[in-house]
């Protein structure tokens, strides 16, 4: 198993390098020079000052040299400074990453907790009433724009019913609360964003779960288990689910980019100070170093997630470790 995992890990490295090339390339394809954003606010900036600025940022060196310098700094986790407020980008990311991660992890768990039972229940009686009902729900969920659900959720739960707050992570008087109230306050603020982020992914995942379970339940070993007289519960969960969950691990791995990206929309609409919103603001203000850094970080996180999914899959399915065909 270690050799398999080592091979998978080594395969990641070229992809990582390509990601840095793409992030770098994108920014340098932007019209004008990266320093234009800083310079363009002051039209009286002289030519010498521009040239000095370019020298300072190393923009007059050949492109591959710039790339290598950037890569070198990246490896040391030095992401440079933001054009907007000149703060080190690493600090900005460190502030916001925990927020985004907690929203994503919470959505993830919510999706798992709902999609798996839904899929299994639908698979037990394919074509039955529950199955058809969930299929309709799934199609609707698939087709709904997440930002629209966010708006409707805000309008219904936030404005009309006033059950939940609609923006930010904390209420205005959060500092004055005891730690328990503050925890509850944050949790209330997270309900809508997490719910919205989970809603659309839920549809797809429960459908995959259903398909996977239907496949598994058709297998001979399930028939044997039933013929042996095992209680249906054991057949379903011990034999069926263990095998049915396997494809789900791969799908979850593939769904990671959407989860990280999806938080952009949720965070922007609900004004949550996370990485997604940082990215959106950087894009709107043409803060290129931040855009570059976040594209790289986002991609790296995705790859790490996929790698973890590979590890989990190898652990769960012994056939992968031994190299046997599934």
């Amino acid at each position, binding site marked *: 198993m270690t050799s398999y995992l080592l091979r998978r890990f080594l395969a990641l490295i070229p992809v990582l390098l390509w990601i840095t090339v*793409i992030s770098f390339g994108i920014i340098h394809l932007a019209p004008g020079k990266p320093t234009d954003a800083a310079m363009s606010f002051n039209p009286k900036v002289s030519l010498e000052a521009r040239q000095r600025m370019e020298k300072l940022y190393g923009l007059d060196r050949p492109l591959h040299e710039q790339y290598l310098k950037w890569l070198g700094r990246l490896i040391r986790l030095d992401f440079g400074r933001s054009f907007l407020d000149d703060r080190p980008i690493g600090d900005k990311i460190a502030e916001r990453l925990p927020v985004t991660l907690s929203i994503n992890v919470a959505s993830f768990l919510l999706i798992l907790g709902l999609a798996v039972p839904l899929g299994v229940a639908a698979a037990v009686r394919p074509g039955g009433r529950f199955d058809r009902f969930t299929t309709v729900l799934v199609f609707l969920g*698939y*087709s709904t724009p997440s930002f629209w659900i966010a708006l409707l959720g805000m309008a219904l739960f936030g404005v009309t019913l006033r059950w939940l707050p609609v923006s930010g992570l904390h209420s205005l008087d959060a500092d004055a609360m005891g730690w328990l109230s503050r925890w509850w306050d944050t949790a209330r603020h997270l309900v809508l964003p997490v719910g919205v982020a989970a809603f659309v992914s839920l549809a797809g995942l429960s459908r995959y779960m259903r398909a996977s379970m239907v496949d598994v339940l058709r297998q001979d070993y399930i028939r044997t288990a039933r013929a042996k007289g095992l209680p249906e519960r054991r057949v379903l969960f011990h034999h069926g689910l263990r095998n049915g969950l396997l494809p789900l691990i791969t799908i979850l791995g593939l769904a990671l980019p959407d989860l990280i*990206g999806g938080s952009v929309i949720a965070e922007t609409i609900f004004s949550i100070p996370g990485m997604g919103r940082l990215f959106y603001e950087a894009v*709107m203000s043409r803060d290129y170093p931040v855009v570059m850094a976040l594209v790289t970080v986002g*991609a790296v996180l995705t790859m790490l997630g996929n790698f973890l999914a590979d590890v989990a899959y190898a652990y769960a399915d012994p056939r992968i470790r031994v190299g046997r065909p599934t």
Partner: protein
Amino acid sequence: MRSNRLALAGGILLALLALAAIAAPWLAPHDPLQVNLPAALLPPSALFPLGTDQLGRDVLSRLLYGARISLTIGFIAVGIAVLVGSAVGAAAGFYGGWVDAVLMRLVDTLLSIPTIFLLLAVIAMDPGERLTALGALPVAGPMFRTIFAAVDPQIVVLMAVIGLMSWMGVARLVRAEILSLKEREFVLAARVLGASPWRLITTHLLPNAAGPVLVSAALGVGGAILTESVLSYLGLGVQPPTPSWGNILNEGRVALGVAWWLTIAPGVCILVTVLAFNLLGEGIRERIYRQ
């Protein structure tokens, strides 16, 4: 059978939508761009079946014209994705070896980057500005200028960008199909008869790989419409005053409390359209796997 009903429902819905979009100039009761401030924020009525927005423009007319924009962007974006994806997937599957390795490495890399990030990063580069700059080229300039007079460069950018974000899935599908088709007898027969690689791919391999690609295309148009609406909602897609379902939602956001029709109507449009494509795609998928 259920699959036929799904595909049929999706198909009928789509036909109706397409008809409505094509017939927009005749169906729309008012000019979608006509500002009419005294009639701002009116609820649905006989005169304005879906109400008006903050500038007094008729929402129904804007939605009909928005349908044109969204459907066009969706179709062309997916067209680009299918073209590029099929080419890459066919090359990788057919030639194998290092071509396959390099191309699939590229696909994996692009798939690792969260789509929205890549999308926003590219749009942030003001590609519209870049495209319009093409109009100043010495020889091809006038041609570009005529194209951009007819089609807003921003829309061209949207179609290209969304398409180029989605080709990877198609590439993987096509590659998988070609890999399995390569060993079949009819391909070997064609090879023996001396068919060139081009002919093999275009006449024999790709047409037989069309099934999953069609499914992916149908679902892809739905996805492209969703993506376009998100971008327009964020202000990075279709720019006002050109109506798009996404930017109608964006403009309606500030009036959410008083003008619910500005939020409900475009959202329902997006939902129904994407639903239609999803039904169609799933229907086709069940049809294929039946065989």
